[in-house]
């Protein structure tokens, strides 16, 4: 089947036949690379897998697992529902305001998003974070703010939602939600580290690699 960018552009799918097996190919990417997801009858799965491994051998193709995929998507700043989000996070916190209609009279969730504490820039929002020493921040670490709250606890101004060592960039990379984060790019803030002193990290764009998205358009 024709899987060229013209016949099957990014985010398109088509039914076809690959290696004699009927399939549905989706040109989608969670790794940020040129990537296809191929659905086919389960009974032919192993046969297709073996053909892929054989055909890919000359290009050094190899299988990789979801842990690797997670690192790759974090390098691209692709959010993960359940990591970058929980029940308190709204699209506007993740730079997704563009995806929320301002024209529709109503939709599920519209009223909630109009409440004063939602329709508000004064929230923790998605940013990338890079430690000054290249180390990997702790998952779930809090960004420390000055002063204490009414309960005598240290104030916080954000938290880490995803954090990995990037073998491509040779340093720790992280995403987190930081108070007014996107307007504070370049600022250095401190994150907690259990059992030792806080770690300094610079607020950066959450896209660490291939910011123009050229790699997924190769071909």
């Amino acid at each position, binding site marked *: 089947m024709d899987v060229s960018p013209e016949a099957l552009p990014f985010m398109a799918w088509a039914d076809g036949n690959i290696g004699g097996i009927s399939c549905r190919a989706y040109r989608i990417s969670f790794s940020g690379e040129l990537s296809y997801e191929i659905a086919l009858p389960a*009974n*032919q799965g192993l046969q297709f897998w073996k053909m892929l491994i054989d055909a890919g051998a000359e290009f050094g193709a190899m299988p990789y697992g979801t842990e690797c995929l997670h690192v790759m998507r974090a390098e691209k700043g692709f959010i993960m529902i359940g990591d970058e989000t929980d029940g308190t996070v709204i699209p506007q916190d993740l730079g997704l305001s563009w995806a929320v209609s301002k024209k529709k009279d109503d939709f599920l969730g519209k009223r909630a998003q109009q409440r004063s504490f939602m329709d508000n820039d004064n929230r923790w929002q998605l940013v990338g974070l890079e430690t000054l020493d290249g180390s990997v921040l702790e998952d779930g670490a809090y960004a420390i703010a000055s002063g204490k709250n009414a309960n005598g606890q240290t104030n916080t101004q954000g938290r880490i939602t995803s954090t990995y060592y990037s073998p491509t960039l040779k340093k720790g990379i992280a995403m987190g939600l930081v108070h007014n984060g996107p307007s504070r790019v370049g600022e250095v803030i401190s994150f907690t580290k259990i059992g030792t002193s806080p770690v300094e990290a610079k607020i950066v764009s959450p896209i660490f690699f291939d910011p123009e998205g050229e790699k997924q358009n190769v071909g």
Partner: protein
Amino acid sequence: MLDSSFEGYVKVSQSFGQHMFTLRATLSSTKVKTAIKSVLGGPIPKRGFCDTYAGKSVAWMSPDELLITVPGPTSGSIYADLQKALVGQHALLSDVSDSRAVFTLTGTKVPEVLAKLAPMDFHPAKFKVGSFTRTRFAQVAGAVFRVGEDKIILICFRSVQQYMFSLLCDAARQDARVF
């Protein structure tokens, strides 16, 4: 694919070669009824039944769903004919052969063996020849079709086929008779 066959006090064997389609559509629609009849050779079965027309079976799954089972070699053309007959209808036809596993149980004690696993009445007075029912077997969903007094076909998801086969073999062991 498993090569599963077991001889206990009933015989359990996995069947291959049949293809299965799911059809979602408004079954009360005259146009849908006509399409089914023209391609499969008979009317839509009543709730709780599976009707067979020259090797092609049509099972009532829900008010808007049928499970169609056809012999493998002719499945391609039957699928194409169904698609064609349903053009213009609000209908969804999908080949689900590879998402299902089929087991055939034969022997006079088949109802007893299945009664150990499923919360339904397999007595021939209640579950007659030609009956088709969706139920569950221990922890998984399944459906049963009474082909004959002593023969029941069981369908489950492919992903639980090994579990289902183990369940059936255990319930059919020679030393596991109840009556």
